[in-house]
C-alpha cells in the first residue's frame, strides 16, 4: 500500500485551543504576528513569548513538536545571531552600534556599563549589545514559527481552508472570485499530496532504470531530474483535463452555488477572538 503522504501537521485534540473557531484563530494569529513586528523592546516580546507558551500548554501540544519545526531554519537562526554578535572592528567606531539600535527602534535594557565591543583576536571580537540584538531577532523568528505551527497543530487543513474561505467570502462584493479561490484551495489540498506521491513513484521507477539523482555537480543533478519532471507534468495535465471534466459533469461554474456548510458563530468564540485580536493589536502599538 502506498502510504498517504502526510500533509499538514494536525495533532487531534479537544483542548480549548483546538475547539476555538478556526476563523478566530486565524484572526488572533494575524494580530499576534502584527504585534511581533510592532513591539519595540523586550517587554512586548517576552509578553508574547509567555502568552504563546501558555497557549501551547493549554493546547497540550508537546513542545518537542514545536522544536522540531525549528530544525530547517537552524542555520538561519545561528547566522542571524552571529552576524549581530561578531565584529571585525572591535575597539573602533564606538557610537555605531548605539545608533544602530536606535535605528531599529530596539531599546536595550540597561545592563549598566556594557562595553561596545570586546576584542578577541586583533580587531575580531564580539559586541555584547549586538548579541542581545541578535537574540531579540532570533526569538522573534522563533515566535513567528511557533505561532503558525500552533495554528496548524490545532486545526485540520480542512478547517483552515474553510476558515480562509469564510473570511474571504465578503470579498465577493468586490467581485473577487471567492468561489473559484475556495475551490482552488480544496483542489490543492487533494492534489498536493497526490502529486508528491506520484513524484516519488516516478523517481523510484527511474532509479530502477539506474538513474542517479544525488551525484555530480549542480548541472548534472538538475539534468537528472528531467526524467522525473517530464512525466510528472504530462500526468498533471492529464489529471487536470480529467478533473475539469469531472467538475463540469457536476455543473461547476463558480457562480450561483449554495453551501452545505454553514459557519455557526459561537458568541464565546466571537468574544475570545475579538478580545485576543484587540489585545495583540494594542500590544503592538503601545509596547
Amino acid at each position, binding site marked *: 500500500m502506498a502510504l498517504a503522504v502526510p500533509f499538514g501537521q494536525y495533532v487531534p485534540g479537544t483542548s480549548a485551543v483546538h475547539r476555538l473557531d478556526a476563523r478566530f484563530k486565524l484572526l488572533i494569529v494575524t494580530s499576534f504576528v502584527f504585534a511581533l513586528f510592532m513591539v519595540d523592546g523586550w517587554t512586548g516580546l517576552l509578553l508574547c513569548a509567555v502568552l504563546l507558551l501558555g497557549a501551547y500548554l493549554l493546547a497540550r501540544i508537546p513542545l518537542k513538536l514545536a522544536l522540531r519545526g525549528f530544525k530547517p531554519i537552524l542555520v538561519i537562526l545561528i547566522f542571524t545571531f552571529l552576524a549581530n554578535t561578531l565584529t571585525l572592528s572591535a575597539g573602533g567606531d564606538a557610537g555605531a552600534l548605539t545608533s544602530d539600535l536606535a535605528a531599529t527602534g530596539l531599546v536595550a535594557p540597561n545592563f549598566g556599563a556594557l562595553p561596545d565591543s570586546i576584542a578577541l583576536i586583533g580587531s575580531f571580537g564580539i559586541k555584547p549589545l549586538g548579541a542581545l540584538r541578535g537574540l531579540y531577532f532570533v526569538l522573534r523568528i522563533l515566535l513567528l514559527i511557533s505561532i503558525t505551527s500552533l495554528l496548524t497543530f490545532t486545526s485540520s487543513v480542512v478547517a483552515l481552508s474553510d476558515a480562509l474561505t469564510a473570511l474571504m467570502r465578503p470579498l465577493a462584493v468586490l467581485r473577487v472570485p471567492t468561489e473559484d479561490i475556495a*475551490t482552488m484551495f*480544496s483542489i490543492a489540498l487533494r492534489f498536493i499530496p497526490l502529486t508528491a506521491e506520484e513524484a516519488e513513484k516516478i523517481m523510484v521507477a527511474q532509479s530502477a532504470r539506474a538513474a542517479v539523482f544525488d551525484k555530480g555537480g549542480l548541472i548534472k543533478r538538475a539534468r537528472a531530474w528531467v526524467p522525473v519532471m517530464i512525466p510528472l507534468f504530462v500526468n498533471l495535465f492529464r489529471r487536470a483535463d480529467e478533473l475539469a471534466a*469531472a467538475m463540469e459533469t457536476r455543473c461547476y461554474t463558480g457562480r450561483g452555488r449554495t453551501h452545505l456548510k454553514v459557519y455557526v458563530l459561537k458568541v464565546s468564540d466571537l468574544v475570545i477572538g475579538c478580545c485576543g485580536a484587540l489585545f495583540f493589536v494594542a500590544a503592538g502599538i503601545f509596547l
Partner: protein
Amino acid sequence: MLSFQEIGFRYTGAEEPALVDVSFAVEPGAYVVLLGANGSGKSTLARLANALLLPDTGHVEVDGLRADERATLRTVRGLVGVVAQDPDNQIISATVLDDAAFGPENLGLPRDEITRRCAEALATVGLLGFEERDPNTLSGGEKQRLVIAGVLAMDPSYLVLDEPTSMLDSEGRAEVLAAINALRARGHGILHITHDLDYAHDADKLLVLQAGRLVFEGAPDTLLQDEEKLIAYALQVGSGDVTPRQSPCQPRPLAPPDPSLPSLLLRDVAYTYSAGASFAHDALKGADLTVAAGSYTLISGHTGSGKSTLLRIAAGLLVPTSGTTGFSDGSAVTPGTVGIVFQHPEVQLFAQTVGEDILFGPRNLKMDTTGIVDSVLAAVGLEPRRFAQRSPFTLSGGEMRRVAIASILAMRSRFLLLDEPTAGLDAQGRAFVHRLIDELVRQGTGVVVVSHDLSEFVSRAHVHLLLQKGRLYVAGGGAGAGSTAKAGGSAVSATGHLHVAGGA
C-alpha cells in the same frame, strides 16, 4: 431515454475519427453494457453523453432534450452523470461529505435538500459513516464509490460508468459492483463501459464498439456464446494465442532449474515505514523468497499486504529494515540486475523518442547499446522501423505499456518483477503480456508477477505465494506445495513462516 443518434466524432489533429455513425439508446432503468478493445472509442462516447465533448455529426438526446444546446446543458448534466476510470481525478473536495455535496451545491439547491441527497447517495454506495474522512485516506474502491455518490447526489436518471473498476483491486471491484447493483435497484438507467466480459452476463443489452463503430447491439447470450464473434470484435483472443490454461488454481510444475545459474534470494526481510515514530507501520515482517532462473512466481495479496514494498526491496530500490537480499552466487542486487515493471509503467516515459527512452537504462548502466532498441521493440511486438523514432506521448495506451516494458527489458536483467502488468489492458494486450512472460521464462529469466487477479495468472505460474499482513505463505495445494517447491531445487520456497493458507 438517453439516445445517441448517428454520432460522428474526430479529435482535432487525429487522422482517424474516434467514432463513426454510432446510434443506440439506453432506456430508463435499463442496464446496458458497452464492450470494446483499448482505443475503440468508449471513453469518447462517455464524454459525449453529457456534452463534455460535442459530436461533429449527429446528436445526443436525453429524455427529449438536446445535449448540445446551451439552454438545456445544465438540465442534461443533471440528468446524465458520468463516472470515469481514475477516481483520484474526480474527487474535488477535502472531505467525503463536501465532495458528495459539490454537485448539489453547484446546482444551487437549498441546504436541507443537499443534506438529504448526500445522505441518500452515500448510503446507496455504502459510505455512511465516512463523511468527515479525507478522500486521500480512502481505498481505491471507497474513492470510486465516493465518485459515484457525488454524481448520484445530482439525482441523475442515467449514469455512464467508464471502466469504473479497472483501476481497482478485487476487493474494490466487488464494492463498486455492489454499488452498481444498488443503482440498478433504484431504477437508474446505466451504461456500463468495460472491456471485461465478466460484467456482460446480466446486462439487459450488450453493445460492442470496434474502431469507433458500433458492431453489435443485442442480448448478451447471443454474443457471449459465440466465440468466433468475440474474437472478431477483439474482445477475446483465440485459444492458440496463449498457453492453454490448466485446471484453475493449480500452478504448473517446474522443471528443476539449472543449478549453474544464480537465484535471487530474500532472507527474513522486514520493513517498517517511519520506524521509531508513533505511527510506524510494519509493511513486511520477515519474508523469505527464492526466485530461481527460469521460474515464474505469482505473488498475490490484498491492498496493504506489502506487495509494493516487497517488490521494491527485491529490486534493490529499498533497503530492508532487517534481513538480507542478494544472489545465490554472493553478488549484490544493483539497479539493472533485477528489472522491475511498476504498475502502469507508462508514466515513466519521458524521452523525445521511443528509442531514446528505451536506451535510458542501458546508458545509465554504461552498456553497449548497439542493436538494443530493435531487439526489445521486436520482443514487445512493435515494429522497430515504425516506432523507434516516434514520441512516446503519441502512442495509444497499449503501445505505451509495451514501450515501457521494453525499456526495462533493454537492461537485460536476469530477473524481472512485474506489478499488475495487465491492469487496464484489453484482451489482446493481456495475451501479449502472457506471451512475453512465457518467452522470458523459457529463455531463463526468473519472473515474479504481483497481481490480485488469481484466475488470470495462477495456472501460468510455477509457484503461487500469498502475501498476508507482511508475511509470505505458499498458497493452495496444502503443505505439499511448499515442500515440492523446496524439493524441486529450491525453486521458490516460502519457508520461515510456512503457514499454509487453506491448510492449517
